[in-house]
């Protein structure tokens, strides 16, 4: 049913545009300290119509179980990071609220915060995963050469098109909650729990999401609880909308990682063993730590098939704001490390990186770290060939190498060039450990007028996903695209289709739509219209990580990709300039090439920005006050040519998720190119050229 676009409870408006008569605004009083015990919260005398809400005012649960951990909606006794919400103040005038917020005095008896994470203590370890394939110790003993490297990825900001927030108001006997979320039923569950009411008393209607970068999975639920609490306790519609600065400083960011790699090669230069130690700094609380760590460990060997492999993964707690999901969830950390390492090994052995990879590439039947053979075909050979041809990789690589070697003897004023390649794969429909017992549903109805209504709570971040869903249904039922409608999401009307994360919209929801349509087709001329069908997805058993071994098959399917990055680097300030980027993707059947190309191109731009522009220093446990204003972005003016090629597919191939591939492949390709251009060891992204300039001068 189409929404009444005039009502703030239903209109398809961004959150910041939602206003209602009598609405109260909500601001948050936050922790000034990284760690400590709250000894006093002194609130000034509030004007009429204003109210302060603390943990003691919560009618239901304050500790929310969110994806494997518990997070206080408002800190009661202790604080664990700078900016942790302690008190809400609600009232009609945002300027008065801001003044009150400044006047509230929070006294914290500070304790020594734990900020170190690379050399972590056992008490910091939230999760530990170990997986072994073959006999790594023996393989290291017989290796002709052992190589080691450590790679780091720093935090990153999602930069949503609109800061995070939520709106809540009563509609008859129900509380309607509105926020930009990737998981509406999670919002409902959290609000229900905080208010101590029945699930059907809360309705969630999401607002437009924009490009979420996997960052709007759980945090909107926390803000929804804040808005809901204010709406219920003030008896008025309530909206909380963080300022850009607040959002930037205090909401979850991408987890930081350290990946220490040790490889053994034989006398032919063939990789015989790989040992990976993965450390993820997940900040305070760390929801999603298990998903991040599993994806990171699973991708520890990247596109390489290694007979002897050991992966040890640690998710580590620190007193910084929660650090967690970002596009390329978990996998991006290890893929950057292992693919950059592979390039370095090949270069040190004076081999073409593509040829070196071909000897090690992951293929169907290659045994994964889980002990299971890979069931999907991989297409890295074809991807490599196409990238080579499109970017003229081999010629450029060889010529840059020659120049690089000569550079050590003669200094040139010209900006040196580099080119790098990397591969990666995106796991489709990977199980979320914390969701392993849930099942998710999609419904479809063929109406009397032969139109089709698809009912799902999955959030399509852009029109491309809806185009895929409609195209799937149209293909099966033979009805025009214009007669297929995807319902507006309202948790009171649509079934729970789970979170829109990890390509689930394509790998899971699209499959459920397909099944519904096949059922409708089979009943088409046997039952009267309307015909409805319902399809339920039950996730596979999650990965069984054990201390010494791993069992299981962790995903529905994989999409393969590769990237080539060519750049030149200013010889004086070490500032890279991207000259070209090539991407080749095997994503099964591409439902809409236009949308796929556009998504990949936008993601590639973000991935390049992540490599050398988007710097988010976290110092003394906090993001700096000027963080947002100083956050560099790769602008469109700096955008290189981005060439994208899809491997051929046929109509029987499944549709797969591909949007994360740039985040998985581009950083390592960038690092290889930057290393070739600069002769520096690029073992951290973002790469900060001026650090090396300072080093040289010093």
């Amino acid at each position, binding site marked *: 049913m189409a929404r009444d676009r005039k009502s703030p409870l239903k209109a398809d*408006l*961004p959150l*910041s*545009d939602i206003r209602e008569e009598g609405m109260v605004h909500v601001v948050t009083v936050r922790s000034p300290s990284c760690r400590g015990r709250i000894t006093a919260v002194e609130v000034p005398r509030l004007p009429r119509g204003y109210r302060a809400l603390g943990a003691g005012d919560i009618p239901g649960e304050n500790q929310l179980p969110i994806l494997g951990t518990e997070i206080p909606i408002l800190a009661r006794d202790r604080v664990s990071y700078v900016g942790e919400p302690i008190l809400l103040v609600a009232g009609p005038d945002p300027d008065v609220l801001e003044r009150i917020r400044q006047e509230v005095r929070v006294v914290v008896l500070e304790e020594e915060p734990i900020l170190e994470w690379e050399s972590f203590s056992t008490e910091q370890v939230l999760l530990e995963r170990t997986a072994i394939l073959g006999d790594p110790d023996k393989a290291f003993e017989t290796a002709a050469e052992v190589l080691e490297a450590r790679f780091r990825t720093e935090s990153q900001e999602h*930069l949503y*098109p*609109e*800061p995070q927030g939520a709106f809540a108001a009563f509609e008859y006997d129900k509380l309607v909650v509105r926020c930009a979320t990737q998981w509406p039923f999670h919002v409902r569950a959290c609000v229900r729990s905080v208010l101590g009411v029945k699930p059907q008393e809360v309705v969630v209607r999401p607002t*437009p999401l*924009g*490009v979420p*970068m996997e960052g709007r999975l759980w945090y909107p639920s926390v803000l929804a609880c804040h808005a809901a609490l204010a709406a219920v306790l003030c008896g008025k519609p309530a909206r909380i*909308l963080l*300022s*850009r*600065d607040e959002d930037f400083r205090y909401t979850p960011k991408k987890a930081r990682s350290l990946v220490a790699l040790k490889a053994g090669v034989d006398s032919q230069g063939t990789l015989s063993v790989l040992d990976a130690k993965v450390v993820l700094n997940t900040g305070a609380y760390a929801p999603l730590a298990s998903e991040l760590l599993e994806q990171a460990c699973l991708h520890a060997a990247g596109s390489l098939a290694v007979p002897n492999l050991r992966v040890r993964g640690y998710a580590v707690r620190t007193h910084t704001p929660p650090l967690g999901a970002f596009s390329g969830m978990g996998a991006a950390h290890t893929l950057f490390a292992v693919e950059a390492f592979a390039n370095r090994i090949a270069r040190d052995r004076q081999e073409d990186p593509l040829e070196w990879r071909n000897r090690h590439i992951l293929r169907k039947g290659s045994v994964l770290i889980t002990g299971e053979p890979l069931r999907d075909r991989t297409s890295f050979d074809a991807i490599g060939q196409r990238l080579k041809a499109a970017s003229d990789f081999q010629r450029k690589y060889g010529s840059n190498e020659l120049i690089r070697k000569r550079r050590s003897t003669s200094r040139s004023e010209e900006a040196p060039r580099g080119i790098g390649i990397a591969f990666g794969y995106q796991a489709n429909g990977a199980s979320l450990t914390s969701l392993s017992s849930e099942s998710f549903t999609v419904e479809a109805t063929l109406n009397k007028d032969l139109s089709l209504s698809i009912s799902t709570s999955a959030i399509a971040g*852009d*029109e491309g996903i809806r185009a895929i869903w409609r195209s799937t249904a149209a293909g099966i039922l033979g009805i025009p695209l214009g007669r297929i409608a995807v319902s507006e999401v309202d948790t009171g009307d649509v079934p729970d289709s789970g979170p829109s994360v990890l390509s689930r919209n394509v790998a899971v929801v699209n499959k459920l739509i397909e099944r519904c349509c096949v059922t409708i087709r089979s009943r088409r001329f046997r039952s009267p219209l309307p015909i409805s069908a319902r399809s339920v997805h039950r996730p596979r058993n999650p990965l069984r990580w054990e201390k010494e071994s791993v069992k299981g098959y962790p995903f529905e399917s994989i999409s393969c990709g590769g990237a080539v990055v060519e750049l030149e680097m200013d010889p004086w300030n070490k500032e890279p300039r991207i000259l070209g980027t090539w991407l080749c993707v095997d994503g099964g059947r591409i439902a809409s090439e*236009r949308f796929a*190309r*556009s*998504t990949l*191109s*936008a993601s590639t*731009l*973000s991935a390049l920005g992540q490599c050398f522009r988007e710097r988010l220093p976290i110092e003394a446990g906090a993001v700096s006050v000027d963080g*947002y*204003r100083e*956050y560099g*972005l790769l*602008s*469109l*003016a*700096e*955008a290189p040519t*981005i060439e994208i090629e899809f491997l051929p597919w046929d109509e029987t191939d499944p549709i797969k998720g591909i949007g994360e591939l740039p985040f998985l492949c581009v950083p390592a390709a960038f690092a290889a190119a930057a290393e070739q251009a600069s002769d520096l060891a690029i073992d951290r992204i973002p790469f900060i050229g001026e650090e090396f300039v300072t080093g040289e001068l010093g």
Partner: protein
Amino acid sequence: MKVDFILNGEDVSCQADAGERLSRILRDTFSLLGVKEDCRSGHCGLCLVTLNGLAVPACLVPAFRVRGAEVVTIEGFKQTEDYEYIRKGFEKAEAEPCEFCRGAVFLSTAALLEERPRPETPEILENLSAVFCRCHDPESLVRGVKSAAELRARRMNFRANR
């Protein structure tokens, strides 16, 4: 202070502090929500408006600078013929900025085409760099602007030939 200015073709007046941001005046006083909630630093460009024909982030414009000026927001721009050819140009090129940045992208394009009726790719990218959104696909944006420029040029020629 009293601020008199021309907003979307109409003479308007409001009370504001001299330093109050134009973005806030437009959203709160005139309920023009197409000017997106801003970053207060000109960083994102989502609050773009034209001020005397120049595209500027409204969050960097203090109220006193608006006195006597002509301001056009996306709401006002939508009423113009220029908006139509930009919308159609983007549609024809199958370039779709997301709902958050679309207004700013279109206004920025209009300002560019006014100055450079046939912009080259680097000029287009430079111009659109004022607006940041993670949905941006450079190639399709360039296609969209060029297609809009083409439609605009045709219309201009048509008018000149009449």
